[in-house]
């Protein structure tokens, strides 16, 4: 009798088990499904947050590649940007490869104010669109060995104009304190240390603007000796020659460069010299 009571008790436990087990299984399956959905959903968010800045980067880089000869290209050259490159390489290799392309392109510190303006407009638009994107993801211009476009733009103008130019671009952050007198010296000392053809080209450009064509010719030649692929060095050298009254020599140089490079800019300059516009 006692045995049968025990058996009944066992049966009761068994029934509970058989009724509860499917319920537990179903609920655990439901939980797994819900958690999977949650994980999947979260993953999608993560992907979107990873890709958003890289997409933005591509846009910015696209601009910098467009303005190959502009300041944006120079910005990529700086060490800080290189660090960013490394970081982004980890996230998106495609972005890093495009960065590499930019850094290998010839970088000439020549300022095209119109392009510069366009770059800033693009930057502004991107900033307003992507306010939520972390600042670290943006390519920033920073204090470096080269002059910013605004600083270079200021060189030949009055101090009053400097303020008016600086205001919209907020170059105050740079705290650039160079004066017209020490600017050339600064670049020269920098060149003596670095022997960088772009510094020489910068000096050539500076002297050309100051109508010191002899010095401009000298520095353009120096830049060209160091790197003859710098188109601007050819142009400045030729233009200086023209200003010094050596038009024939200038044309000879430009024609030889045009034959070598087939550059449309060189052809345009030849035409300008021939027409006596320079």
């Amino acid at each position, binding site marked *: *009798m006692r045995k*049968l009571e025990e*058996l*009944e008790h*066992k*049966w009761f*436990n*068994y*029934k509970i*088990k058989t009724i509860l087990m499917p319920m537990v299984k179903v609920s655990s399956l439901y939980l797994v499904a819900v958690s999977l959905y949650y994980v999947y959903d979260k993953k999608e968010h993560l992907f979107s947050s990873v890709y958003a800045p890289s997409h933005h980067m591509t846009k910015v880089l696209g601009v910098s590649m467009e303005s190959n000869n502009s300041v944006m290209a120079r910005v990529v050259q700086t060490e800080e940007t290189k660090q960013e490159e490394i970081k982004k390489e980890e996230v998106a290799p495609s972005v890093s490869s495009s960065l590499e392309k930019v850094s290998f392109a010839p970088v000439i510190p020549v300022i095209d104010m119109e392009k510069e303006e366009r770059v800033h407009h693009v930057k502004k638009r991107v900033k307003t669109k992507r306010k939520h994107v972390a600042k670290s993801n943006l390519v920033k211009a920073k204090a470096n060995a080269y002059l910013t476009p605004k600083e270079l733009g200021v060189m030949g103008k009055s101090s009053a104009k400097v303020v008016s130019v600086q205001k919209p671009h907020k170059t105050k952050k740079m705290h650039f304190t160079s004066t017209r007198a020490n600017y050339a010296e600064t670049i020269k000392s920098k060149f003596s240390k670095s022997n960088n053809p772009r510094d020489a080209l910068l000096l050539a450009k500076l002297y050309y603007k100051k109508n010191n064509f002899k010095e401009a010719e000298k520095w353009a030649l120096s830049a060209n000796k160091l790197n003859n692929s710098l188109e601007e060095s050819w142009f400045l050298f030729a233009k200086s020659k023209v200003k010094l009254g050596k038009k024939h020599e200038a044309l000879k140089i430009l024609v030889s460069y045009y034959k070598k490079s087939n550059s449309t800019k060189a052809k345009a300059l030849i035409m300008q010299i021939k027409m006596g516009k320079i």
Partner: protein
Amino acid sequence: MNSRYEELKNIFVDIVDNSTYVELDSTAYNYSVLKSSLDKPLKMVLLYGKPGTGKSMLLNRLYHELKEYREIHYFNSPILSEKEFLKSIYEAMSGVDIPVQMRVNFDALLKYCLKLKEQREVVFLLDECQLYSEALMEKIRLLSDTRVVKFVITLHKTDNEDVIAKEHFKTRIWEVIEMSNANEYDMELYIQKKILSKGLIDFFKTMKKSHFKYIYGHTLGNFRETNKYLYTIFDIYEYYEKNEPAKIDNKKFSKKILEMAAIRLGYINA
């Protein structure tokens, strides 16, 4: 007076008795093969299968059916002593009781058998032969070679041991009958015939297909297991009938008791 459930319980007591033999399609076929093999000039017939497949039952039935027509002897339990075995064989053949202190000489027994050649054919039905020693099996083989003695032996089929491959069987057994568990239909028929043999048709009607399916799921058609399971079911029924009759419904077969019996027999790990 016995209760209905006690009566049902006793139907499923596992005994080898010709009166409780239930003929099914599969057993009927095996029986016919076995019966016809005795008429063939075979020295030995092997009946093998897993425990509970009905080997002993078949042997028992063969004995009871043929004992009136031919010289047939049934050793339902194995005689493990060689002395006793030879004595039993001689006593069965000669019809003479050997005194306790006397023993039968095997060579003399062989000579005795050879003298009876083409005069008599004696059939011995030996159950549980897996328990016999190798030496005794060799003597059985030699006796069968005289063609005066014919042996029908049953063996448990084991996974590790392929008895048919044994040398003394390989050359002599000409008929091998393998017994297997019943299928679901045969098992249902087996239970039905057993219950109806006692005229308990009302109770049988309470059992549904699902109940037979459940029973088959645990016993896999093994007759011994089926007997055991149903015995336990009716044992529980009997208890309730006597002590707590309110707990059972005579018009409905209890799934609860079916499950309780399965728990008791260890089919279900509760």
